[in-house]
């Protein structure tokens, strides 16, 4: 039983079916591990034992009755604290929502529950998902389980750390500019950003609505595919979710990649890329070639403008979305004699420094006289970046790049310089702006043992192809071992 915290989804299923373990016992193993180790990593902010135990009892009752088990039966999951959970505190790692308890579940959460998952709790992240290191949490940073003096990446740092440290089998994260893929890269686990519109965002606390996506972390690509198949699909409660059928991702993860065209854009391998990261990603591409893929060199000319466009668009949308935190309807209120002072004091005290910085930047970019120069221009550049992807996908099936320019950096290393922190998103924001799906898969380590991630982008709604290539690569590594 002690190895339960390292089981994959199929291993859990088999253990339940052969009565090697009950859902209650599996859940208890994870809770024990979290109790023992969470203080080292600070991955969880809130635990949800009541919900988790009742979910486990439901699965055990199904087993006792001999019923068919749903796809995530008995699988302990973690949920990023920007995703609403009924009856379980949801803070967005912010003081302004310190005591907020949502009265409803996000659609993705409801789907996990229906699929038999067991909720462990809510994971730490950068405040309102704004950051790339998890240092912007009002409840302290998360530490990287691979190297405790380093950041786990962000903003979904707690979700990545929970899975990497065997404190969850699956974790939900959110990705606006790289917030799933980059922590996946830093913590050495697969991390999937689905296509914009593939997964309902009903119940996700909005940061930048034209960019936000929910996606899974897992210990292997196959488990990520199972998780995606559960949370994907159209939802009438989210008008931006796509009315498209969800393919069978498990069928595609087993397929050969022979003959697939792998696009390798030179623009992602230039100045600023750490040499060890470059070597490992290039070795990853060579490994894919050995599996029968064809390498096609690409030029994606607008890549270098992505950070500038992203930080205007994302902050503009954030400044609008975060207007709702005003002390009137929920969350923190700092009482004042007049309404205006109540707004200003509540927001001034409730938000942390990075959130205020982004609200300021976004408000400036949208303000009278600056809209055309910043927001409108950024939206036009976004069209060109999206066109780079559309053009590339005329010639290739997937695009392979580094996930991040460096491995995990040290805690505190970039926190005083916001622009340096923003530039760490350079390879992830492009796909975010284009709305395409992307995964980060581990592709080796630095000499000092820090994980390196390789990013695979696919066409819109073609997660099946992305998962197929990622899984083939992962399995190829396993065979090589």
């Amino acid at each position, binding site marked *: 039983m002690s190895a339960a915290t390292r089981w994959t989804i199929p291993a859990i299923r088999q253990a339940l079916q052969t009565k090697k373990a009950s859902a209650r016992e599996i859940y208890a193993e994870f809770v024990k591990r979290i109790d023992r180790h969470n203080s080292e990593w600070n991955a969880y902010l809130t635990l949800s034992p009541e919900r988790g135990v009742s979910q486990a009892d439901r699965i055990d009752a199904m087993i006792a009755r001999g019923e068919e088990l749903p796809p995530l039966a008995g699988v302990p999951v973690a949920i990023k604290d920007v995703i609403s959970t009924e009856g379980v505190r949801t803070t967005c790692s912010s003081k302004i929502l310190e005591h*907020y*308890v949502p*009265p409803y579940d996000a659609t993705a959460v409801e789907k996990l529950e229906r699929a038999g998952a067991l909720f462990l709790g809510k994971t730490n992240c950068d405040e309102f998902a704004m950051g790339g290191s998890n240092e912007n949490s009002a409840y302290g940073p998360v530490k990287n389980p691979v190297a405790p003096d380093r950041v786990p990446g962000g903003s979904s740092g707690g979700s990545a750390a929970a899975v990497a440290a065997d404190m969850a089998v699956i974790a939900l994260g959110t990705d606006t500019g790289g917030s799933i893929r980059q922590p996946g890269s830093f913590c050495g686990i697969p991390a999937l950003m689905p296509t*914009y*519109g593939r997964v309902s965002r009903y119940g996700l606390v909005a940061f930048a609505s034209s960019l936000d996506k929910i996606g899974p972390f897992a210990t292997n690509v196959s488990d990520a595919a199972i998780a995606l198949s559960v949370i994907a699909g159209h939802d009438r409660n989210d*008008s*931006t979710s*796509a*009315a*498209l*059928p969800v*393919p069978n991702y498990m069928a595609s993860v087993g397929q050969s990649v022979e003959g697939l065209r792998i696009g390798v854009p030179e623009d992602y391998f230039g100045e600023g890329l750490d040499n060890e990261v470059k070597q490992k990603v290039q070795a990853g591409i060579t490994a894919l070639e050995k599996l029968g893929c064809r390498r096609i060199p690409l030029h994606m000319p607008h890549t*270098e*403008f992505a950070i*500038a*466009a992203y*930080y*205007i668009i994302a902050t503009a949308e954030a*400044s609008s979305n975060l*207007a709702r935190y*005003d*002390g*009137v309807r*929920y969350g*923190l*209120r700092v*009482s004042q*004699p*007049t*309404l*205006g*002072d*109540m707004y*200003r004091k509540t*927001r*001034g005290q409730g*938000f942390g420094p990075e959130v*205020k*910085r982004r609200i*300021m*930047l976004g*408000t*400036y970019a949208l*303000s009278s006289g600056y809209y055309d120069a*910043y927001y409108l*221009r950024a*939206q*036009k*550049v*976004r*069209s*060109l970046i999206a066109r780079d992807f559309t053009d590339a996908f005329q010639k290739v099936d997937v695009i392979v790049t580094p996930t991040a320019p460096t491995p995990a950096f040290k805690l505190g290393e970039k926190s005083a310089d916001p*622009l340096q922190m923003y530039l760490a998103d350079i390879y992830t924001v492009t796909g975010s702006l284009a*709305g395409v799906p992307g995964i980060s898969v581990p592709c080796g380590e630095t000499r000092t043992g820090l994980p390196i991630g390789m990013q695979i982008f696919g*066409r*819109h*709604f*073609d997660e*099946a*192809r992305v998962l197929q290539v990622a899984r083939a690569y992962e399995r190829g590594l396993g065979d090589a071992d």
Partner: protein
Amino acid sequence: MKISRDDVLRVAELAHLDLTPAEVDTYQAQLDQILAYVDKLKEVDVANVEPMSQVLFPVSSDGGDGHPELREDVLQPCTIADAVLAQAPDSAKPFFRVPRVIER
């Protein structure tokens, strides 16, 4: 300097953010640095380029249309008022209660 202290104060007022004098200084310097970087966007020729105001594309692997259908305009019963008001810092059913508005 692209950003003056007055700019910072004006934006903070628009965003309803109470900033300390130290925060005003910090944000002035940081916004200035970030906007100087963002000026990169001026190098791009955007003549005849439409802004990307829609993210979902009618391109997909199975030939389907990624655009969401329009929802029928049908009234749905909504019985969550009590749960919503229970979250409020101050309420008097069916209202949220706030401080005086007039002097604003």
